[in-house]
């Protein structure tokens, strides 16, 4: 058996060497006749082949859509089946989008989510990261728990949140089977609240959405801040301690400036991410983003992305895709403006 194996290895080696030898010979021959590029491709030719799969995908699903979506937003009566359209309009679709009451409501909802959940999440995760960094036992355990939200399905845990805040038959008239949140409220002697069910108010539903946004956003930020804080040299803190600086001062004068690039990065990405909130609202409120409050009416909890997808799901009607594209570009514009402002402010405040 061993001898056979050896023989086989020998044979393989021989074959390899013969093929390599012939390859080298051809290469030499070709180079002598200035045909070396056939075997030794220049880098740009190789690069084309290496980039081919990725670029093909990017061209079809990234670059073409950017241009095309801009184009679509200028059409009127665009039909997605035939690709025909009636006419061009310069700003007609944009004006129609911006003037709709639904869009303004969506803008308000989104703005509330961005301006409340982002600061809370960043501050909280910064404190958590500092606290985590200062302890030694159980650090890994806490770190694992804090990271759990990152590896979950947004819809799944959103449903759990909705359940925790509503219970089973959670109407004010019939408060049987309280959800966990209402149970906690009754422990402290309060009245159960209809958070997201019939009888909910705008701010009760918004509270649940905000809580879920914070819960969902903590994980990533904690990990990034923690890895930033761990990279700070211990000497700074020792020097501060000898100089008699308090902990609060050490935090505001050493920790925050040292990880300011990370805070800045997180700020920009999470503002962008919050402007695009969609799945969490779908999970908590429902696919239509509306809460019916009895016979009197309904609460509109749609975000801007919600508003865009409402149009896309009705795309079979002529012209609605253009409105969706216009709304998406308005969202892009808002995000761009906010990012620019942050970059300008960041230039002065962030220490690299």
């Amino acid at each position: 058996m061993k001898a056979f194996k050896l023989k086989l290895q020998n044979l393989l080696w021989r074959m390899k060497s013969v093929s390599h030898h012939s390859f080298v010979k051809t290469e030499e021959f070709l180079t002598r006749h200035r045909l070396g590029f056939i075997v030794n491709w220049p880098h740009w030719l190789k690069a084309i082949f290496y980039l081919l799969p990725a670029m093909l995908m990017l061209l079809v699903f990234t670059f073409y859509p950017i241009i095309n979506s801009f184009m679509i937003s200028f059409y009127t009566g665009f039909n997605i089946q035939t690709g025909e359209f009636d006419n061009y309009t310069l700003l007609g679709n944009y004006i129609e989008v911006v003037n709709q009451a639904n869009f303004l409501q969506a803008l308000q909802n989104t703005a509330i989510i961005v301006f409340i959940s982002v600061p809370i999440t960043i501050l909280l995760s910064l404190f958590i990261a500092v606290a985590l960094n200062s302890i030694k036992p159980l650090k890994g355990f806490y770190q694992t728990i804090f990271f759990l939200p990152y590896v979950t399905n947004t819809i799944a845990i959103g449903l759990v949140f909705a359940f925790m805040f509503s219970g089973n038959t959670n109407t004010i008239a019939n408060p049987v089977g309280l959800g966990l949140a209402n149970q906690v409220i009754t422990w402290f002697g309060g009245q159960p609240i209809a958070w997201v069910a019939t009888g909910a108010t705008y701010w009760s539903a918004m509270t649940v959405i905000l809580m879920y946004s914070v819960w969902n956003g903590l994980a990533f930020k904690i990990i990034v801040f923690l890895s930033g804080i761990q990279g700070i040299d211990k000497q700074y803190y020792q020097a501060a301690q000898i100089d008699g600086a308090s902990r609060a001062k050490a935090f505001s004068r050493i920790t925050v400036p040292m990880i300011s690039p990370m805070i800045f990065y997180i700020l920009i990405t999470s503002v962008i991410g919050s402007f695009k909130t969609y799945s969490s609202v779908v999970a908590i409120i429902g696919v239509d983003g509306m809460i019916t409050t009895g016979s009197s009416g309904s609460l509109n909890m749609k975000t801007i992305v919600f508003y865009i997808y409402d149009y896309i799901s009705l795309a079979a009607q002529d012209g609605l895709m253009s409105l969706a594209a216009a709304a998406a570009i308005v969202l892009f514009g808002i995000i761009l403006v906010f990012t620019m402002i942050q970059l300008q402010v960041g230039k002065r405040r962030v220490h690299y």
Partner: protein
Amino acid sequence: MKRITKEIRKLDFIATLIDTVYILFAIGLIYYLFSVLALPNNITDEVNTTYQILGSTWTSAQVNTAISLLVGYFIVFIPTTFSNWKRVRSKDVIEMDEWTYRSQYLYSFMSLFLSFNPFSAVIRFLNATKILTIVQGHGLKQSLINIKDDLLDFFSGRTFQRMKARRLARKETSESQQDLERISKQDFTLKVLVMVANYTFLTFIALFIFLPFYWMILTALKTNTELTTAVSPRLIIGLSEMQWVNFKVALDRFDFGLYLSNTLFVGLASMVGTVLTTILAAFAFSRLEWKGREFIFSILLMTMMIPGELYTITNYITVRNLGWYDSFYALIFPFMTSIFYIFFLRQTFKQIPDTLYRAARVDGCGDFKYLTRVMIPIAKPTITTITILSAIGAWDAYIWPQLVAPSEKYWLISVALRSTRFTDGGSDARPVYNVQLAATALVTVPLLIVFFSLKKYILAGVGRSGTKG
């Protein structure tokens, strides 16, 4: 010495093998128990029958208890066996310190009393004794005597005297040391207070983070009767009351098996595609030198700012025109590559020194061979991170799938969770919450298992992706 380590390794291997056999047996058992569980006629009903299992009669409560115990066994022993396999298979030198034999002893007792596994208990006990002999230089008998002496010292107060003497000795070491100690003594109380505050704060946050998971599992195991009639929800339920049949209902009646396998298929396909295209593109952007490389790359980076909705609008039309609407193609192909991952991997590839490349070229190594033999092994942590992140992304996808694949055959889990009406089919339109949350748990748990087994890579990779970007 080498002979002894070899022996220890061998014994370790045998014990781990026996553990694995036990776990496989338990998996078979739990599968059998699940297969005999009777489905209720109406999903809101509670099942209360008797089963004929292995020639004896079991009630529903007993079967529920058995499954609960088996699940508890899995939670403890599958991770430990997993890490044992990692240790057995690794070629590193075994670290032998005090904790090695202590953990081996603990594991041996756990095997004996928790999993009724006397074989591996005995083997691990022998192993631990062997390591103890190597580490301490004396056998088990002597260390038992030592423990006895230590306990005697502790109770007679001699331990404290020794500690005091050591502290005094340390005090006299040096002047600067004394200064430091004075400072630290001054804020000792402050330190303790801060510590207590830290732990309380972290525990509160941890509870806030963990509560939804607990509530999900807890509610999924309750009966529907309890959910609809109880005035206040119970925070803990007994082992025999856990309604494991809810999971079976979610899998059987609501087709969650199909949705899970759909998601797995789409996730794997797009993951493989992403990793392949990303590696090739990152290689072209980092190693190969060609005109316009930086220009094209900066254009790629610029598109990262644009919100995905803008793509979605045209991609929706493209997919319809290609005839991919309502099929797996539409779910897989648009996510086959990602600019962020290309950027991320390029940063890692760029750190590999050029000299390595030249050395490889001199040895007659082609570009592709250099990529597969040198660059990929070096960048393996980053590639693992990319793989995991793209898998998480596929698991979490909701917007695009519900837009382009609305028919039930192609539902992914997120879409299924949101679109399934978990009602009992009667006039009552309220969802049956325990089944809904059982389905939610079925969706959440697999990813958590993946996370726990690959924790090291994920935490490091995500931290890095934040600091670099």
